[in-house]
């Protein structure tokens, strides 16, 4: 225990003496919370829409009107013919075309509605797909409104109702904030310990420690504990910052957010040790760690939903701890889920923690 104290004292001494690290621990999470929620967004706004109205009925005018007054769209003009509208789309002067066929209102009243066609420029895939989804919704609801006004019931309208639950305002920001916290932890608690250990290897100082009677496990523990503390500080700062800036607080238990973070922090730092054990230079460690991080972030469902990945990739995500941590964080933060609801995810996360811990211990011994 005394040895651990001596080693910890040295680690913290070095940490606070570093001109860069203490500042980074405070400002890094603040900056990430300040900037990325605005940038890392898939929210679509101001889709430029051209309506081709060949029907020129009260219904078609209602649809145009709805689009004009929606916050998501920038209504441009009502064009008479489709070809001209398509030219505008090609010239990138509009993002989407809603084409209402002639006799549309009549066909709807007869009960066999013609189809409204929506064409969107999908060069920006997100804008294209999300924009056309919005348009589908808005035209659908306009038709329903129209029928209700006429007092007609039982006629079929292609029913589109989407309710955004748990993030009712559909603020993409709120959805991204827990994921950004995860990325912060991956960087701070995975990258930094790995680099710190490899640095001792590169400088040869680890050799000097290894000839002392200090146990390797104690040495490793002294390396990791500071990063556990730093990780929790980073979590606290990000939670506080996102509250101040966006008014977002965990709707579940604070304690559970910290518990999940603690498990993930330990797990990431153990992974950092494994990476360090296999690297003899900083370059190797950085490269290896970057690879791991890319998989964790891109396949863990942090940015894109796992459900939209190909099936083989979905199976692969089961061996990614970031997947479970992501589920826990978003569910606790946005849905107010409890540890009981998420017991499977917690169990999986803890199991990964154990596996990586063992792996770190085994690979370290191999090297001596």
């Amino acid at each position, binding site marked *: 225990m*005394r*040895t651990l104290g*001596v*080693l910890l004292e*040295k680690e913290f*001494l*070095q940490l606070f*003496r*570093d001109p860069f690290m203490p500042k980074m621990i405070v400002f890094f999470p603040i900056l990430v919370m300040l900037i990325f929620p605005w940038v890392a967004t898939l929210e679509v706004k101001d889709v430029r829409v051209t309506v081709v109205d060949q029907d020129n009925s009260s219904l078609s005018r209602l649809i145009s009107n709805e689009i004009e007054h929606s916050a998501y769209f920038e209504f441009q003009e009502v064009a008479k013919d489709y070809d001209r509208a398509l030219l505008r789309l090609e010239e990138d002067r509009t993002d989407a075309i809603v084409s209402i066929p002639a006799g549309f209102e009549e066909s709807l009243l007869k009960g066999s509605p013609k189809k409204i066609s929506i064409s969107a420029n999908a060069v920006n895939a997100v804008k294209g797909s999300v924009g056309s989804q919005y348009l589908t919704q808005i035209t659908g609801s306009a038709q329903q409104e129209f029928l209700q006004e006429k007092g007609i019931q039982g006629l079929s309208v292609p029913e589109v109702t989407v309710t955004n639950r748990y993030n009712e305002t559909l603020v993409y920001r709120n959805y991204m904030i827990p994921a950004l916290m995860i990325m912060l932890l991956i960087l701070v608690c995975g990258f930094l310990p790995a680099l710190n250990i490899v640095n001792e290897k590169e*400088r*040869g*100082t680890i*050799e*000097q*420690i*290894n*000839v*002392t*009677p*200090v146990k390797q496990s104690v040495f490793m523990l002294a390396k990791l504990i500071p990063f556990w503390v730093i990780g929790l500080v980073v979590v606290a700062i990000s939670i506080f910052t996102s509250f101040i800036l966006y008014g977002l607080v965990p709707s579940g238990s604070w304690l559970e957010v910290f518990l999940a973070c603690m498990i993930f922090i330990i797990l990431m730092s153990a992974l950092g040790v494994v990476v360090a054990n296999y690297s003899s230079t900083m370059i190797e460690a950085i490269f290896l760690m970057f690879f791991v991080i890319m998989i964790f972030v891109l396949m863990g469902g942090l940015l894109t939903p796992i459900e939209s990945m190909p099936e083989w990739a979905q199976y692969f995500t089961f061996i990614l701890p970031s997947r479970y941590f992501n589920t826990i964080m978003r569910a606790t933060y946005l849905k107010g889920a409890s540890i009981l609801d998420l017991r499977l995810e917690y169990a999986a996360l803890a199991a990964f923690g154990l596996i990586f811990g063992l792996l770190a211990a085994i690979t370290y011994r191999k090297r*001596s």
Partner: protein
Amino acid sequence: MSTTDRAIVVRGLTKRYGKQLAVDHLSFEVEHGEIFGLIGPDGAGKTTLFHMLTTLTTPDEGTASILGKDILKDIRAIRSSVGYMPGRFSLYQDLSARENLQFFAALFRTTVEENYDLVAPIYSQIEKFQDRKAGHLSGGMKQKLALSCALIHRPSMLFLDEPTTGVDAVSRGEFWEMLQRLKEQGITILVSTPYMDEASLCDRIALYNKGRILGIDTPEGFRRGYDAPLYAVSAERMYELLNVTRGMPGVRECYTAGSVHHLVGTADFRPEEYSEALAARGFSDLVIRPIEADVEDVFIKLMHNDPLQ
């Protein structure tokens, strides 16, 4: 004789890196309280040997014991009782000199005050810079700090891997004086160096190359044992002299040694005949005189006699 009677006993120690033999079935012994020098060029395998003896690396074959303790079984006991100074400066550059010393003392569960008498002659020389970060010390000061840190737990045995490489001549001299003082305190020292001139400062030396020991003796013993005729030759055109001499009859070998060439003759080498032959080839200013062999001459001779080198 039991193994505890010797400070170091090495038996058939071998280490391979891939197919390369870094240390090749090595056997030697070091007495208590002596300065034992491991003399050999860069890449001879000295550091690998040090790593095995200080329990940093495990050998592929063979055994060794340090102060009667086995390097494979009694790792912790060895680590508590030896001090190791690696060839490269390996202290924490961002900690001050004093913090480094205190840190290593604490790791051995002792304090700087408790063993200050042992490191004082060395540490006092850098004491006025003790609040400076170790990374900002000069080469000679770094070396003194490293030695202090290796000594702060009062080890009975010191391993010094090329301690004077990259250090100026004055500091080197001071460093060897310090080693003598430590020896007087009863500390056994195993020191490696690529400098042949430092060999004469050791009690005994092992000439070491390509993972094998070419010979072990006292520096004096090595010099006395040199049995071939040895001359120093020089002339105005030194490079041509080297090439011409190498082709002369009765010359076993000729190599550069400082400002002169050393000429090793066979038993029937006649210096007068050699001078005449060279004068005939335009070396009228040739100077030739018989000399005593130094450790380098011994090293070269042993290296050339060894069938495996």
